[in-house]
């Protein structure tokens, strides 16, 4: 059987599994559809949260960014896990006690203002749509490879599947479907990693393999990689190249953004008890950590494998001949995401950093040996995880499994985000403000239309994404960090912040962050409309992906000063805050 058929079979089987579970679970209980996770054990809820959370950015994109960014990319690892500590301690238990279902609902009630609720709806939509763009980028890459089409066609096919899956299928809310998706994606991620770790280090546990010795050279993996990269003029792997300020702020943005993303927060609204909200966050992180502890090993080992592929005789020997390039090169060249060009016409492909300073050893070697520039001209980082099994010569079923895993990651998150967007529009905006008498059927129709619009916008912007999947997603975190997290936190930890303070804080955090992003990434992400680049940013060394932390500080400060300059919140709001702080009296969560 050829690889193409095998891919289709495995992806088809995984979809059949999700749909089968959805039908089985729906027959069991219809209320499960709306209130995901109620009555579900915290371990199961944690697993489903992990599937919701780990998106194309974590699955497809992150290891590639680590492979090419090395230590600097640690910000992703710490940021996307550290946020769960904030969630478990600062938000989840209190929001569960509050007992409503959407983030804007809490903000509207706590700040006794429908304008606060509307501002929260806007913040939620901006953050979530940006996040969906990142998912679309990842889905496009996956489909272009496995259906052997160019990446734009892959994106359209992906968008169509997300549409059918989220809008027509409506199986997002079913916890057990997500448990199945978690299982598919985690097997798909860890199995190739285990194989590769065994091949390179003899240790079957990838996180331990990362710090073990290379079987060929007897040197540690990281030291072997470091030496190869240095010889070829690439930036070293374990040293910091980003500024300390930017790395600090980037990690902070990702952490508080994690705690401010609506589709993750809502999962904690529906656990049976306040105590479960705390443990659920812990279990979610356990299941997330399985992937996040594997990712740095995948990154480093894949990078090493690529270097050995390109330089089979070592960097002092001859580069690989164009005729000897492995099959995965041909497979990926179809997508346009990988390209080689024999610039000096010697029939070999030299992969080195031709942007090195002219007096560096690698450039002298290049002159001596007649290299005329780097000949691996395109290597899109987002292909790394998907190509990883092919790079390591793993069997065909592993390649197909990784394809299914990447789609599970992208689809589960996209569906969760689209549900958050559509409930904000149909429940908070239309039912809460514009037309409170809307019928249930009308609400559902509005929800579906808003999902369709969100997918269309995200697909259009996904054609020219502002970065690799994980970088686009990082922008979404910055927006959530600057707008939603501070409002929620102040709503719980302060009784003094009033309606005016919260609205002013959210608006200034959101606007300043979005403007900073647009100045660097182009207005509405349209290429060529930017005034600055992340290589040479407006403020110090702060890149647009890191600005969320600054936006959050602005949000806190504005809310504090405006609240103190205006009247205190009414007594019943003080009572509300005091009641969310203690678990006693938490009713069972109610449905809309």
């Amino acid at each position, binding site marked *: 059987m050829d690889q193409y058929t095998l891919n289709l079979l495995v992806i088809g089987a995984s979809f059949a599994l999700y749909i089968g579970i959805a039908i089985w679970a729906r027959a069991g209980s219809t209320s499960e559809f709306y209130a995901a996770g109620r009555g579900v054990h915290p371990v199961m809820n944690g697993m489903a949260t992990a599937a919701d959370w780990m998106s194309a950015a974590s699955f497809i994109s992150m290891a590639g960014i680590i492979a090419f960014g090395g230590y600097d990319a640690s910000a992703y*690892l710490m940021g996307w896990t*550290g946020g769960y500590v904030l969630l478990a301690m*600062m938000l989840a238990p209190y929001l569960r006690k509050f007992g409503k279902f959407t983030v804007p609902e809490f903000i509207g009630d706590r700040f006794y203002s429908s304008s606060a609720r509307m501002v929260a709806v806007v913040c939620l939509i901006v953050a979530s749509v940006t996040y969906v763009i990142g998912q679309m980028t990842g889905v496009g890459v996956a489909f272009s490879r496995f259906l052997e089409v160019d990446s734009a066609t892959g994106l359209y096919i992906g968008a169509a599947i997300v549409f059918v899956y989220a809008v027509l299928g409506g199986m997002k809310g079913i916890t057990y479907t997500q448990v199945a998706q978690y299982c598919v994606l985690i097997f798909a991620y860890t199995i190739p990693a285990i194989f590769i770790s065994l091949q390179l280090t003899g240790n079957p546990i990838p996180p331990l393999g990362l710090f073990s010795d290379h079987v060929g050279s007897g040197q540690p993996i990281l030291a072997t990689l470091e030496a190869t990269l240095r010889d070829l003029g690439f930036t070293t792997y374990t040293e910091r190249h980003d500024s300390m300020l930017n790395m600090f702020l980037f990690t902070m943005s990702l952490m508080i953004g994690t705690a401010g993303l609506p589709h993750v927060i809502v999962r904690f609204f529906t656990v049976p008890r306040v105590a479960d909200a705390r443990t659920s966050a812990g279990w979610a992180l356990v299941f997330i950590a399985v992937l996040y502890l594997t990712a740095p090993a995948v990154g480093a080992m894949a990078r090493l494998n690529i270097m050995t592929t390109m330089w089979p005789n070592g960097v002092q020997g001859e580069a690989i001949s164009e005729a000897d390039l492995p099959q995965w090169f041909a497979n990926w060249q179809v997508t346009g995401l990988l390209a080689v060009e024999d610039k000096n016409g010697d029939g070999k492909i030299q992969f080195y950093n031709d942007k090195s300073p002219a007096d560096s050893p690698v450039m002298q070697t290049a002159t001596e040996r007649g290299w005329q520039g780097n000949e691996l001209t395109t290597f899109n980082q987002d292909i790394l995880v998907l190509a990883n099994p092919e790079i390591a010569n793993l069997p065909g079923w592993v390649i197909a499994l990784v394809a299914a895993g990447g789609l599970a990651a992208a689809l589960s998150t996209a569906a969760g985000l689209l549900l958050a967007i559509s409930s904000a529009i149909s429940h908070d905006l239309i039912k809460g403000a514009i037309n409170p008498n809307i019928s249930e059927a009308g609400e559902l129709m509005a929800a579906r239309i808003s999902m369709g619009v969100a997918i269309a916008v995200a697909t259009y912007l996904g054609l020219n994404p502002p970065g690799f999947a994980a970088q686009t997603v990082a922008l979404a975190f910055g927006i959530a960090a600057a707008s939603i997290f501070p409002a929620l936190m102040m709503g719980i930890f302060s009784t003094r912040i009033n309606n005016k303070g919260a609205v002013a804080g959210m608006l200034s955090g959101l606007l300043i962050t979005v403007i900073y992003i647009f100045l660097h990434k182009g207005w509405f992400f349209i290429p060529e409309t930017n005034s600055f680049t992340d290589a040479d940013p407006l403020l110090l060394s702060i890149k647009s992906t890191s600005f969320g932390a600054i936006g959050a500080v602005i949000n806190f400060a504005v809310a504090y000063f405006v609240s103190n300059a205006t009247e205190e919140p009414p007594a019943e709001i003080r009572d509300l805050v005091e009641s969310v702080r203690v678990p006693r009296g938490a009713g069972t969560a109610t449905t809309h």
Partner: protein
Amino acid sequence: MNNGNGEAYWKANVRLMITLLIIWALVSFGFGIVLRPLLAGISIGGTDLGFWFAQQGSILVFLVLIFFYAFRMNKMDREYGVDEQ
């Protein structure tokens, strides 16, 4: 619920939270980023301990922090008589 009890419970909660968040910041922003040069002498698998904290250690500590917090708070809920019945 007795109001004085609720206030004391909240103070104890905030105290615990701040202690754990100091550890949270120390392992990630501290050992992983700002204080990494201080750990440069301790080598592990071809690199230094700061790299390990940035790519693995901090995640493991985060896990311990959340479960410790959940365990302590569930106990405190009962001690202060504010648990769900």
